[in-house]
């Protein structure tokens, strides 16, 4: 749960002002929340910094950033079921 909260907190910082972030969870469609392509790149870099990882090439697509769940598939700490 701690990593989920950490990931959602990072995502919240990149959503447009005025977004209803109270409803944000792992399955929320981030595009529908207003995450644009430039903000996605900033988000990607913050995730890399926050989790001290380097996302693989496969994660550099719009579909990989559709939901927090999709992103988490590329973050090693989420691959451990104890998260």
């Amino acid at each position, binding site marked *: 749960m701690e990593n989920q909260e950490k990931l959602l907190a990072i995502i919240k910082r990149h959503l*447009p002002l005025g*977004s209803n972030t109270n409803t944000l969870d792992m399955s929320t469609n981030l*595009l*529908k*929340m*207003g*995450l*644009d*392509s*430039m903000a*996605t*790149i*900033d988000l*990607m*870099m913050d995730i890399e910094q926050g989790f001290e990882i*380097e996302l*693989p*090439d496969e994660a*550099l697509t*719009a579909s990989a950033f559709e939901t927090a769940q999709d992103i988490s598939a590329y973050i090693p700490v989420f691959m451990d079921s104890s998260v």
Partner: protein
Amino acid sequence: MSIYPELAMDNNLTAHEKIIVNARKVAETTLRERACLVDSNAHFPVEGVKALYDHGLMALMSPKAYGGQEVDLGTFVEVASILAGECLSTALVWSMHSQQVAVVAQHANPELKEKILRSVAERGAFVASATTEAKGGGHILTCSAAAEERDEGLHIERFSPIVTGGEYAEWFIATIRTSKDIPMNEVSLVAIHKDDTHLVDEKNSWNVMGVRGTRSIAVQLSCALDEGDFIGEKGKFKNVALNPMIPLGHIAWSACWYGAIWRAYKVMMKHLREKGAHGGADLKSDLIAERIAQVRLEIDSVKAFLMYSVAEYNKVLDVKDNTYDGFADTSFNILINNLKVMVSEHAFTAIDKMVQIAGIKTGYSTGAHIERVFRDLRSARLMYANDKLIVASGKLSFSEKTRAI
């Protein structure tokens, strides 16, 4: 029998050659004759657009099924360069219209295509772009203008501060949101007829340094929308923007800027030789030779990048793999951004050097060809500002799939 009164009909010419003959004819007659007037009066090039229609060039990017010429990108670029050689304002107006025609041809539903593309082929209707917003900063992938539900259906009120040729357009291709409750990046594209618009530039404030004939004015769009007015999928304007709107737009502008400097270079060289022949400039001096070579280097660099970008665009078109969308590819988008940035900067550097070589009378006096092109090309870095594109390309570079090196 062609519907275009002046279309070259020599049967010995190929379709491509006929188009080029017609483009040269329009450029060397109407555009050459009107360029100074269009510039000095800051008038929309009405006569130039009429000549382009008469020669079948307003529907160059429209499918043959709708009365168009359906040309490839190389032909489009060649025509844009030829027109821009005589009047950059007219060439830019025409190229932006052609860009919108291509968008309609590729993404509109059959009924809308019939209405818009037929009006282009049969009357030379001008199609304008209305994607700017007062607070948008020119970022076309987001939009604050939102439609609202009324008793009669969806209604849009949209203010566009900069619409090239807005006074003369029959159709406006505009970005909107279908509701104020959806995110700014969920943008849709719609077609709006001129009867549903009014001009708000009552003070006639269009008075700029260069490309004065483009007459980019403010327009208020106000109308009911139905399903048939949408171009492409609702909320998925990005797909239209990536293919073909943005790449075609940057390539078209770059082709115009290249055409403008190439023709200015020829004007300058003719002037130098005439001057030399009459005991003026010392054409054998190393200084003149070096300066001319520097100009030529700028022009050839611009041409090389333009041709390379056209080749890359065609390569993306040729990919048959349905799982790969080359137009959405990060590397391709960086290339297209860089094309616009590179050509706009180097074209201006080239014309600046030409002013220096040609001197006060031929290069810097009002009414001189080179002086007009100098003012015109200063706009190139401002149109969809380079600063914004450079930042976008820099950020995109972090999402480019080059990590596994």
